[in-house]
């Protein structure tokens, strides 16, 4: 069992956050006592991921600069929390809950249905770069399963038909954020 990382893929051109996001970063820094601005790190990583889709090494170094902390402090955090994509992902990332209560109501079938429908395996991205399929541990929707989350939006009580509709809806841009 060896984790393989393609480091070349984890690099990307450095980009800066939009003025709105930068304003938000500055606001977040005022939410905590003087000198405790590292507390804003996770929120800032979310902001960066919303804008750039994933967190490249350059993005993380940029976040370290913004918060005046060492790059390793950002890597340590970004690699700990599973919401952060450290490799490039598709335009829409489907994260399907696979934990107990969702499994009891059929999440395994939903996952394999999406795999077949998009012709990718869990962890992969479609050739057109439109969809990435991931699994997630309990997303706190146990009574409403099976479910998936895509860009902070929940889709619950999934059936195969609903999944088909959902994929079409995302393809046609109905859920652009």
């Amino acid at each position, binding site marked *: 069992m060896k984790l393989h990382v393609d480091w070349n893929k984890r690099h990307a051109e450095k980009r800066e956050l939009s003025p709105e996001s930068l304003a938000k970063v500055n606001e977040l820094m005022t939410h905590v006592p003087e000198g405790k601005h590292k507390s804003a790190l996770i929120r800032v990583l979310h902001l960066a991921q919303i804008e750039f889709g994933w967190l490249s090494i350059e993005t993380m170094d940029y976040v370290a600069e913004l918060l005046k902390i060492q790059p390793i402090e950002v890597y340590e955090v970004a690699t*700990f*929390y599973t919401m*952060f994509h450290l490799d490039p992902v598709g335009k829409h990332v489907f994260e399907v809950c696979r934990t107990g209560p969702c499994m*009891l109501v059929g999440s395994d079938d939903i996952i394999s249905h999406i795999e077949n429908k998009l012709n990718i395996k869990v962890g992969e991205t479609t050739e057109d770069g439109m969809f990435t399929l991931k699994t997630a541990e*309990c997303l706190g929707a146990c009574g*409403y399963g099976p479910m998936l989350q895509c860009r*902070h939006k929940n889709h619950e009580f999934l059936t195969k038909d609903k999944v088909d509709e959902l994929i079409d809806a995302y393809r046609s841009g109905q859920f652009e954020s």
Partner: protein
Amino acid sequence: MPIDQANLNPKYMKGRKLLIEQVNIPGIETFDVYRKNGGYRSVDKAIKTMSPDDVVEEVKKSGLRGRGGAGFPTGMKWSFLAKPEGVPRYLVCNADESEPGTFKDRYLMEHLPHLLIEGMITSSYALGCNLSFIYIRGEFMWILHILEKAIAEAYAQGYLGKNILGSGYDLDLRVMPGGGAYICGEETALIESLEGKRGNPRIKPPFPAVKGLWGCPTVVNNVESIAAVVPIVNDGGDAYAQIGIGRSTGTKLISASGNLARPGVYEIDLGLSVEEFIYGDDYCRGMANGKKLKACIPGGSSVPILPHYLVTKTAAGEDRLMTYESLSDGGFATGSMLGSGGFIVFDEDQCIVRNTWNFARFYSHESCGQCSPCREGTSWMEKVLYRLENGQGNLRDIDLLAEINKKIEGNTICPLGDAAAWPVAAAIHHFREEFEWHVTNKEESQTRNFGLSKEPVGA
């Protein structure tokens, strides 16, 4: 087909609704509607007519126990908070709801954000905090936005900020997200995460009440516990304590999932019978699709699983009740725990081995990796269970699992180790026959489920 949560109207549910009575009032997520329906009364009452200690006293009288899972008396936890001169202290609301089977806090925050904010103001006042936080799991980002909007309204109305209601009391309230880590529900991991670090639980002592956020005294409370402070202050601790049985006072949100006809979030009076909760028309309405009940995990994935014959009755043959005491009646051998109220129900078609493996995979995935028994033990159990589930196990593996369990339990930095060990131990304890069947009937186990387990003779 599961019934959509929107069809559930708490008005028609039995019992008092102290928390979610108003959940279906249109616009209740806004300050104005919430206020018109009696919202923020507890802040008015506490700040204008009570001392901080009076509020703590009411919470103590109420008998409220932490709703996150451990069930530790909230009033007592508050009274442990160190109060050194000149050192700020913090109240942090644990909204990192991630325990499989639990989705009650989400329901409450999504629909009644002001109830949590009201509870945070009243509780912060009681504890003498001037800066408080709601730490919400990153996967609930849309709820973070709901809360931020509600907080902005509360600031605009003078319920947050400087000199609240002209009393001289100042409070800032902020929401901070996690990034996807179950372990951040453990209070010291949560504090680390709030400081912008990896969610590694701290070595205790010191406890957060002495050294918590940024080294200052800190109280961490679950969303539901904080929300319950509102009715406790409004109606008095004694009134709250009158609901329930014995040391299980008040109401509790139960999130019901699995193979039920009507899963969802219910507010129950503690003391309701498990029988009525599962089968009653006002609650889950029995099993989905007319199936038989096989097993139940009554308090979230970390608590022991109960086989069908121990769900509605205790080993002594008494009615099992939804209370801290009754659900744990019989101890590890024949009982379970109320935990966080994540009530997961399995029908006859479910495989216990597969489910045990699924939860083991969850804990292995969520282990922070800091201490050796948890890092190595949880992943080892996951691998052994995977083999058993997939027809590649042997009988030795079942004893090995029990052995690994024993070496994790009690030896880890934080309770995640125990939480990972107990479900496996309990599943083997009650469903050993089904585990053995997976070894002795390897091929068959890949094509069909074992079915219901037999009640032990004389049980």
